[in-house]
């Protein structure tokens, strides 16, 4: 029993430290000092991110490449470290976005909880991504989803918030029950829950097929893959915008990475099964997500369906697990997606807070009154749609690139379906642009005075959207970690 192994988990320990510090800070400070909580959270997380990024090269320890701890239950690699950094960046952005929200009277008393719970979900995701054992994976997953329920319900007296929370919770538990069923079959068939063990024991029988499908269904819930996505729109709409943006990017990104690790490591010998199931699921996800998005009027629902279809694109990276580009492209996609989606949610959130308006129609003529927000929103839309020179184009291209590299005709077909869907998606993204730039409005939303945090997040995300693609070092960084 050597507990020194805990010291090998630099990422998780440092995050835990951040959580504890924030917890103490929130609990034991007066409200006067307490108002600095947002910036403290951002700074602490920032420091932790820096540690993740540079700790190794500075010799701080705890971040060794390819550490396998606790009897192979936990593995930290360069690429998982990069994935954590990416999630951290996203979380920092969300926190920045949240800063002006938690200052509101209603939220003031719950801001401590907000930060602590969010970071705990993040911790759960860390474990989910580093897990090499389905028990740890499952606990990580639950750590990521159960506090999330509380977060969804955080504006608990708002009409939609509790409804969203209930839906999310029931759906989450139901899906984890199904996933557990699947895992139990896996366990029954292979006799172990360690990824490596499963990989060597797994044979394709009806039982394992059902197990894999159920596992996919469980993860499909987190990623909002069709047909497991139906909660998405309702929850996104009902949850506070800040939580929605966290839910739509960070949680999704973590799940995508964790799913990829699980599928490629544990279910590697059953790859033909999940490959084909995922194939159908991706095609459905991209298409159905888009079809639903077309008709949405509420911007948050709209973004929900858009994120459904984006999840399909992310999964294309999983499909190309065989080559080195798959995980790099997936993570890069997630990173770009984080920036684009947070930009969109930040703008939507700012407008919602200032005017209470959430309908796309209300955005008519927005450019006249709020040019900067409109431009940021437009960049986000273009990036999501994959228009160059914005980052979304690069991430889409790379994900298609990695998907096609497998070289089979079905992958060409799948990419083709995805490409056709980019056209549909462009249509509805342009609807937003149209509302903001093209339409005239008698009573446009009045000019919004944003505070520094909102400005910062909009600026940083917009900058990210422009630069992430053009500057190749980002992708290279991820790719070098992946190989």
């Amino acid at each position, binding site marked *: 029993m050597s507990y020194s192994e805990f010291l090998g988990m630099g990422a998780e320990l440092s995050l835990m430290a951040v959580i504890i510090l924030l917890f103490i800070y929130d609990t034991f400070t007066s409200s006067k000092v307490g108002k600095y909580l947002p910036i403290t959270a951002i700074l602490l997380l920032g420091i932790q991110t820096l540690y993740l990024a540079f700790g190794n090269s500075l010799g701080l320890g705890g971040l060794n490449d390819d550490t396998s701890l606790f009897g192979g239950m936990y593995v930290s690699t360069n690429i998982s470290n990069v994935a954590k950094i990416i999630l951290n960046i996203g979380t920092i952005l969300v926190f920045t976005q949240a800063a002006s929200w938690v200052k509101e009277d209603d939220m003031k008393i719950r801001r401590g909880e907000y930060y602590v719970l969010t970071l705990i979900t993040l911790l759960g995701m860390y474990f989910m991504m580093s897990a090499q054992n*389905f*028990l740890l994976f*499952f*606990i990580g997953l*639950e750590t990521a989803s*159960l506090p999330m*329920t*509380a977060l969804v*319900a955080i504006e*608990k*007296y708002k*009409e*939609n918030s*509790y*409804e*969203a*929370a*209930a*839906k999310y*919770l*029931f759906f989450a*538990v*139901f899906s984890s*029950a199904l996933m*557990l*069923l699947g*895992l*139990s*079959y896996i*366990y*029954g068939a292979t*006799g*172990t*829950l360690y990824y490596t063990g499963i990989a060597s024991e797994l044979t394709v029988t009806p039982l394992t097929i059902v197990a894999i499908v159920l596992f996919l269904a469980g993860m499909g819930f987190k990623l909002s893959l069709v047909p497991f996505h139906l909660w998405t*729109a*309702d929850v996104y*709409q*009902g949850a506070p915008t800040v939580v929605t943006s966290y839910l739509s990017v960070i949680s999704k990104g973590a799940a995508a990475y964790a799913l990829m690790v699980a599928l490629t490591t544990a279910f590697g010998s059953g790859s033909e099964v999940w490959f084909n199931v995922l194939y159908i699921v991706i095609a459905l996800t991209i298409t159905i997500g888009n079809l*639903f998005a077309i*008709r*949405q009027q509420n911007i948050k*629902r709209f973004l929900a369906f858009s994120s459904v279809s984006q999840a399909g694109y992310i999964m294309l990276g999983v499909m190309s697990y065989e080559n080195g580009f798959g995980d790099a492209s997936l993570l890069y996609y997630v990173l770009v997606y984080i920036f684009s989606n947070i930009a969109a949610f930040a703008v939507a959130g700012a407008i919602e807070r200032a005017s209470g308006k959430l309908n796309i129609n209300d955005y008519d003529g927005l450019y006249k009154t709020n040019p900067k927000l409109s431009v940021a929103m437009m960049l986000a839309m273009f990036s999501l749609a994959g228009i160059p020179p914005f980052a979304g184009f690069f991430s889409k291209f790379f994900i298609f690139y990695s998907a096609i590299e497998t070289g089979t005709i079905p992958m060409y077909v799948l990419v083709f379906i995805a490409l056709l869907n980019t056209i549909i998606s462009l249509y509805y993204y342009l609807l937003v642009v149209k509302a903001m730039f093209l339409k005239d409005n008698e009573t446009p939303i009045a000019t919004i005075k944003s505070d520094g945090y909102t400005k910062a997040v909009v600026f940083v995300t917009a900058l990210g959207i422009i630069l992430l693609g053009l500057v190749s070092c980002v992708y290279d960084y991820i790719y070098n970690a992946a190989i």
Partner: protein
Amino acid sequence: MDNNLTTMYIYLAISGIMFFAGVYGFIARRNMLAILISLELMLNAVDINFAVFNRYMHPTVLEGYFFTLFAIAIAAAETAIAIAIIINIYRNIKNIKSDSLDKMKN
């Protein structure tokens, strides 16, 4: 087929029936607490699976055993949160019917 295996199937059958009874309840019941009860059935059924597989198939190490143990804890945590939310809903709208949760739709 060896006897033990038959017994295992009995266990699996029980858990299976429990699980899908839970599924039935989840979809059919209107009361959120009833739905929660159904969920408990499902989780419980899965726990049985793990324990049974551990005992009958792979008894040398206790993986299923511990999975069950942790799953029970998670189920408890989940119930706590769920009940908190249900109570919150009750406080807001004075009922906990699942069909009242359809304010948000297309």
